[in-house]
């Protein structure tokens, strides 16, 4: 019963042998390698930031405020004398954890909704499509601002915003893939053997569509990180004193004339992380599933 079509086959990336092959191929792609290094750097900072940060990101030294970059403070200090480098490093954890976890939630939700829309009755499909399109009709930042205004800025609301924005995209992808799989011969064969819808979906449809979903979702991490930092920059994201990248930029912006290094250094991790994830995502996508290029 485990016949699977090559329609959405991602076997190139599945399993240990596949991973080894992918890593070998990645070595010949300089941009992909650069992306990998940047992503690993970001992950390292997120996991071990508290060990490598030179100072406590929350510690206020009023006498040291607005110190230009020096050996003691590589990225200088902000308006409260806090070490900018330590705050930037601590911000990595916030960015990656919010980005990663909200994308995981959105993927799960998108998977459930997309499978239901693609495999369920017609009315459910139409209803869900209407819902996805309504969310789609809002420009992301405007939708984010609206929700943040209504619910009040907090980490939970921010994650909620990301989930609301990202879910329809994944659900639509899964719906299309499910619709395509639904009428293939092997699914018809399993159904005629009496398999329940749940079994068909989980055991036979899901393995074929989860690979592309993971690739596409990982390519969304940069835009989610940018959205999260952007909303925080506008004062509608994570409340202070959390050393979020958007917050560092916002605080730095108010003293951009006296202390330009704060915005310069606050923007660097955002640029490097988004570039890293994009470069890595692009080359992984091309390596694992070139057909996805057309979908994205």
């Amino acid at each position, binding site marked *: 019963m485990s016949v699977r079509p090559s329609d959405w086959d991602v076997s190139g990336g599945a399993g240990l042998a596949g991973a080894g092959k992918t890593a070998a191929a990645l070595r010949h792609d300089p941009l992909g390698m650069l992306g990998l290094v940047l992503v690993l750097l970001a992950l390292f900072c997120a996991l071990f930031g508290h060990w490598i940060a030179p100072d406590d990101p929350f510690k206020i030294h009023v006498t040291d405020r607005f110190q230009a970059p020096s050996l003691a403070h590589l990225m200088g200090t902000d308006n409260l004398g806090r070490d900018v480098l330590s705050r930037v490093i601590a911000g990595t954890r916030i960015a990656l954890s919010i980005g990663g976890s909200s994308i995981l939630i959105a993927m799960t939700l998108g998977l459930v909704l997309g499978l239901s829309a693609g495999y369920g009755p017609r009315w459910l499909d139409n209803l869900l499509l209407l819902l996805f399109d309504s969310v789609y009709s809002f420009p992301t930042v405007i939708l984010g*601002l*609206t929700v943040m205004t209504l619910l009040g800025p907090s980490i939970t609301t921010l994650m909620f915003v990301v989930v609301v924005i990202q879910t329809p995209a994944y659900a639509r992808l899964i719906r299309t893939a499910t619709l395509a799989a639904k009428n293939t011969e092997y699914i018809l064969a399993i159904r005629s053997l009496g398999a329940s819808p749940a079994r068909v979906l989980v055991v036979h449809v899901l393995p074929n569509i989860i690979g592309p979903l993971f690739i596409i979702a990982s390519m969304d991490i940069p835009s989610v990180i940018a959205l999260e930092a952007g909303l925080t920059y*506008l004062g509608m994201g994570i409340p202070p004193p959390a050393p979020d990248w958007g917050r560092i*930029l916002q605080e730095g912006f108010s003293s951009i004339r006296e202390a330009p290094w704060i915005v310069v250094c606050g923007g660097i991790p955002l640029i490097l992380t988004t570039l890293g994830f994009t470069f890595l995502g692009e080359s992984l996508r091309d390596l694992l599933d070139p057909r996805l290029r057309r979908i994205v």
Partner: protein
Amino acid sequence: MTVLFAAIHAIPGDPAIIMLGSRATPEMRERLSREMGLDQPVPIQLVKFLTRVAEGDLGTDVWTKRSVGAIVMETLPNTLVLILTALSWAALVGIPLGCYSAIRRNSFIDKFTGVLSVGTISIPSFVVAIYALLLFAIQIGWFPVIGAGADGDLPDQLWHLVLPSFAVGLGWVGYLARIVRASMLEVMAENHIRTARAFGLPEPKIILHYALRIAILPTVTLLALAIGGLLSSAVFAENIFARPGIGKLIVDAANLRNYPVVQGAVLVTVGLFAFAMPVADLIVAWLDPRVRSAL
């Protein structure tokens, strides 16, 4: 529209309490609730809201008591000018770049465009805006730091437009180049291009007249979708350059919890976004005879 209304009403807590703060007396809250029509049953509120919107009335600003419609219409032209300028320069640079990359495939320019487009797409536009402001307005002093220029002074307004439209458009240069390149490669491989070559037509004519005209179609549809992304970038650019516009209006109103203004402004932006779709379809129909005859 109904979704927006539902969203605003689904939230826990009385908007009147949130707006007035915890020290407001019950009488003050009651008066505000009455003014905003919040004391009536929700279905009646919804019907009233929809009728008002249909009549073009977006409500009244809670703080200044001015009509929300008037406030939005004052700021909207600024945002539209910003978005259209950004889109125009992105198209003027991105489309030729994509076209050239497709023709000279694997050349240095092609590879450079590839890296550049991925880079500019992924860098957040508000970081670009802040860096541009710091470098060109504060450090070098070529461009003004804030505002949209004096009323009636066109050169001054254009001068104020340069940096914000640069920041909003930069990501789209790469994106457009990419889309045009991919679609050009596809079109150039088609039979009618081979036929045109066989007839000995000059290469520039084939490229511009036969290939690009078809290759540009996906871009036009994409540009309608782009309005959403551009509006999002405009929110940041307007706030960073303190430029009056709908994005700045929404953020300022959101920070003041000025619900009617947020609601009205969001409604207009969503409407704008929805309006762009059929317009793009019409442009595609105008460009493509096949679509035109199907209409």
